[in-house]
């Protein structure tokens, strides 16, 4: 019996010990998950779960911890139904991320931060976040103990769902802050004569590149605003757009079950349904604000939705 403490745990063993990491052994590295993943197609060509798993098996910790795959997986699980081995690859990646954080690595992604001077500690952000990244803590601020939100930037993936839900404007992310969103709405010059449609498109719902390119081909009266997740939309933004002279607002998110950030599309469905109910109570029904959930198989649907809205809004806006 040896008296020296032998490091029995290989890197792969450590991953296996984290719940979800045990799937590692079942994976035979076919790469089907890679072909299903929206991140690789849309955001990061280097994103590759198969390569990450190989790095784990080969004990290449450093490479695994700095691999963008470790940090970018949102757990949408689009790859799961396709995996012949029925593995939740996202859980394996989650296990690697867990070890990476333990080893002192941190997320390279653009995440939200909280302005404690504004935060009221209501906790709405933590309830809204798919990953429970914001947490309420008690800390001393300007000499008194205060309850405020603190974001675990290793959990945050930057979807912006919390930003739209926060009522004080305390939580924000560059690119999707309230002021930036308002600015993007207000620069949209109303085009005379044509119905003005403002389309908010989540970064993930359009799978076919032809659909993404199509958005560029519309004339100026179709204003396209890209957002990380439909969860970023808040009803006030839709109303502000209408007030600024926009005739209709179309919001595109993912189909439930395929939402890149898991719950953004569900939260938005709730918001926009209720907003429409209230517009109806104010005698302003007529589909001027519409939320559509585009599935991975819905190639070409965006065109139908935009054209449908334009038709609805022509030649006269419904209201007045």
């Amino acid at each position, binding site marked *: 019996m040896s008296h020296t403490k032998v490091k029995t745990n290989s890197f792969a063993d450590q991953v296996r010990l984290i719940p979800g990491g045990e799937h590692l052994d079942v994976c035979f590295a076919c790469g089907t998950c890679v072909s299903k993943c929206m991140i690789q197609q849309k955001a990061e060509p280097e994103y590759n779960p198969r390569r990450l798993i190989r790095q784990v098996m080969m004990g290449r910790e450093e490479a695994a911890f700095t691999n963008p795959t470790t940090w970018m997986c949102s757990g949408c699980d689009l790859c799961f139904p396709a995996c012949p081995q029925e593995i939740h690859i996202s859980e394996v990646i989650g296990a690697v991320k867990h070890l990476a954080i333990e080893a002192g690595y941190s997320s390279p992604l653009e995440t939200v931060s909280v302005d404690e001077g*504004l*935060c*009221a*500690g*209501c*906790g*709405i952000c*933590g*309830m*809204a976040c798919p990953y*429970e990244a*914001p*947490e*309420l*803590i008690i800390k001393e601020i300007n000499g008194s103990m*205060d*309850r405020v*939100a603190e974001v675990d930037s290793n959990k945050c993936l930057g979807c912006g*769902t*919390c930003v*739209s*839900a*926060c*009522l*004080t*404007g305390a939580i924000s992310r560059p690119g999707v802050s*309230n002021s930036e969103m308002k600015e993007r709405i207000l620069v949209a010059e109303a085009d005379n004569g044509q119905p003005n449609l403002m389309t908010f498109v989540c970064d993930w719902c359009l799978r076919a590149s032809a659909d993404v390119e199509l958005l560029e081909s519309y004339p100026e009266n179709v204003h396209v605003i890209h957002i990380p997740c439909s*969860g970023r939309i*808040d*009803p*006030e933004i*839709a*109303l*502000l757009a*209408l*007030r600024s002279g926009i005739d209709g607002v179309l919001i595109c998110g993912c189909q*439930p*079950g395929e939402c890149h950030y898991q*719950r953004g599309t*569900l*939260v*938005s*469905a*709730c*918001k926009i*349904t*209720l*907003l429409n*109910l*209230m*517009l109806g*109570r*104010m*005698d*302003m029904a007529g589909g001027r604000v519409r939320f559509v959930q585009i599935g991975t198989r819905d190639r070409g649907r965006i065109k139908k939705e935009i054209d449908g809205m334009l038709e609805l809004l022509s030649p006269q806006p419904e*209201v*007045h």
Partner: protein
Amino acid sequence: MAKPKVAFYWAASCGGCEITVTELGMKLVEVGDLVDIVLWPCLMDFKYSDVEAMADKEIDVCFFNGAIRTSENEHLAKMLRAKSKTMVAFGACSHMGGIPGLANNYDKESIFERVYDTSPSLDNSAGTRPGISTKMPEGEIVLPSFYEQVKTLDQTVEVDYYLPGCPPVAEQVGAVLGVILEGKLPEPGAVIGVGKKTNCDECERTKRSNGHVRIKAFKRPHEILADPEVCFLEQGLICAGPATRAGCGLPCIQGNMPCRGCYGPPEGVEDQGAKMLGAIAAVIDAKTTEDVERVMDTIVDPLGTYYRFNLPDSILSELKYGNGNGKQ
């Protein structure tokens, strides 16, 4: 130095704002010594003609409560604006439209129909409706006309300060009177007699699991016995606290009733109802569309809940009534 001249007036309101001033108790007697009250229909006997006879800007401060619903409300708002150096929108109705403002989701005709025809406690078989002008043997009598929409005070005349609340709490009224007497009012346009953040900042109720509870079903206050120690929202009770500017001192919340939102939105929010809807929708516990529908079905009267005090001040009203809703 002459005592500052102060006027109180009520338009479309319930009278609660007047009561809150009397709640100042003995302080009011002191105030009475320090100012000259030139109009206060609720408590003292003045005639409109007394005010009409005043010079422009003769009144130092006018506290105007109530929304603008009728031609009389508008007439008095304009007259008092002309006669006053400083106009304070006093209370939720003049600030944002208040409870009377909820009528903006009906039109004038359907309101009249309800009030004069179909109300169950009414016998109006003659079908009488209020007429603006009626000829009587003694001469013509005139009633104010009832407008199509409820407006806030600042959609009618220019307002210098807003003192929110339904009604504003007496301590804040006292504090504001003090500030006025000391001549320390902030820049015009400010909301006064309020705190900095939202009610959640002052609320002592606990949040469970570090604020990660999500809501499967919303409930109304009469449906459950609320735990007095725990955040209402976490108990499924829709609380407007997160969407409401602090300042009231939380009397409702301490009475174990969720906040209703009367102090209006925090800085930076243009439509309190829409923002609150966005926040409440974000806390639902849902994995499928069916879950969303199930939770949503438990939100009774979303418009009345989210826009309880601010419908005339909302973008919704602005869109419905067109440009006539712009602030002065």
